[in-house]
């Protein structure tokens, strides 16, 4: 779940950003849309407890983020947030298997090969475990990055522009995969995008009891 109320962020050397309130239940889907530069990244960083808001309250996965500081925020993020970055950022120096192990290392946990294999299997890329990221196709790389995001079984999955630079067919596959993965884990899914196709792709796929929530950010809110 993600609940925000009166959320504002003040840039150190710039304007103040005010975000509309959201109330996404656990397992819900939130679409954060708007043109680039409207504060989508800032909103994601606030929800991931990477930055502190200037005002307002934010409760993510039952955790009031104001109570988190420094290392405890990092530990909470490792447990509760799965992140799919736009550029995927698989480490070229490491195999697919070790790229996933990186998430366990970052969380300060011992390497659990069983969990890695299960996460890769769930996304149908278990046979690529020993490959390097350079040897993956775009779709494969996205599946691996998603496997890394859900490895720690997070309550909330944040996806940043998952369909950028994808053609219609690939974009549809990416959105479907993201949605199914989140639903399988009953994780709350927040997708930040400026791509109008995503809303159209999501709506028909949602189960009846889940509603698509939208947070529309505009440049004017700057």
């Amino acid at each position: 779940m993600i609940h925000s109320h009166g959320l504002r962020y003040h840039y150190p050397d710039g304007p103040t950003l005010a975000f509309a309130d959201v109330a996404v239940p656990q397992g819900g889907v939130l679409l954060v849309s708007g043109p680039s530069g409207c504060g989508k990244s800032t909103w994601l960083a606030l929800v991931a407890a990477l930055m502190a808001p200037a005002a307002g309250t934010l409760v993510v996965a039952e955790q009031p983020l104001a109570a988190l500081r420094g290392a405890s925020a990092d530990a909470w993020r490792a447990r509760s947030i799965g992140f799919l970055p736009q550029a995927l950022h698989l480490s070229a120096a490491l195999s697919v298997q070790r790229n996933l192990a990186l998430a366990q290392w970052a969380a300060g946990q011992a390497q659990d090969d069983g969990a890695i294999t299960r996460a890769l299997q769930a996304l149908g890329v278990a046979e690529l475990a020993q490959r390097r990221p350079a040897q993956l196709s775009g779709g494969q790389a996205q599946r691996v990055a998603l496997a890394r995001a859900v490895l720690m079984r997070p309550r909330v999955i944040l996806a940043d522009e998952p369909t950028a630079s994808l053609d219609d067919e690939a974009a549809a596959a990416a959105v479907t995969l993201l949605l199914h993965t989140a639903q399988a884990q009953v994780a709350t899914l927040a997708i930040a995008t400026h791509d109008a196709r995503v809303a159209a792709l999501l709506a028909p796929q949602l189960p009846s009891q889940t509603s698509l929530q939208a947070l529309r950010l505009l440049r004017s809110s700057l």
Partner: protein
Amino acid sequence: MTTLSLAWRYLWSRPLGAALNLLLLSLGLASITFLLLLGHQLQRAFERDLAGIDLVVGAKGSPLQLILSGVLHLDVPTGNVPLQAVQALEQNPLVASVIPISLGDSFRGFRIVGTSHAYPAHYQASLAQGKLWQAPMQAVLGASAARALALQVGSSFVGSHGLGAGGHTHGDLPYAVTGILAPTGSVLDRLILTDTASVWKVHESATALDADDQKILEQERELTLALVRYRSPLAAVSLPRFVNSSTEMQAAAPALEISRLLRMLGVGTEVLQALAGVLLLTAALSVFLALWSAVRERRADLALLRMLGAPPRRVAALLLSEALWLGVLAAVLGVALGQGLLALLGQLLALDQSLLIGGLVWPPELGWVPALALGVSLAAALLPTLGAYRVSVQELLQPR
């Protein structure tokens, strides 16, 4: 995956750069190891050979030459002194004991030293085989000399005139080997010891024309030099001055002369040390550059680690571990290379037959090398690590 194993993978993800940095660091450390070992070996050699010898008395000339020739057996002697003069010195109340040394002949490059039983006793030498000489023309070999010359107890050999190989031989008077010393690690190992009288005998019989002439020669018997021990430390004040001013002989204090020699050599070693230092500094800069660019190249990777929940100190530790690996590897390689270099030099110059102890030695000063390796690599990593510590996750989220 531990931080160390992850750092290892990141380090070798750029194999060429890592190898070059490793090589640079290792070369700097190897030169420092080499200099340390060489200095240690020389120091040990001097200490061990000079121990317990308070004063060397011999013919007038360079005092340093007297020490080098008479104690370390490296240089040629300054000349000879009359036996009677040495005997008179022995009666001096300030003198506790005198070891006579007579030089002049050699066998295939190994010096034949005419002396007394007090000489091997001074270096606490024990016999590996046979016994000490009991009569003139019997010889006892040092361990290295025996090995190099392939002589055994019971063999005989003929000395040749002069201290280098190639002098004319004293063919009619062969030496019989009666004993071989156990290795002492001292100058004795590369000497052939015999009675002082052997040296006289060889040269008198070579030059005496008849029995009368022999008598005259016996009157004029000489020694090359004498190793003197003081009865009390007070002797150091007056005895050298007494010898230098009231006799035809010269007195030189080994401790004084060797510290003078080391001071002269010191300039050379300091230059070499400075060069090694420059090499190490270059290596440090190169490591710094490599890590700095690693942080720049991997900003996104590092930011992702933060996004995945790694606290800043764990991200910084990752980079520091990379430097740590470089330092550890370079320390091992550098010490191995330095030891190898010294062993090679020792073998090429046959230094273990003259001065060096040879073989691997691990002086405690060598502990500085790994300390230096870690210090240099960690210092070079400091700024990049700070960069990694401060890496902002924002970079990951900004559209490119």
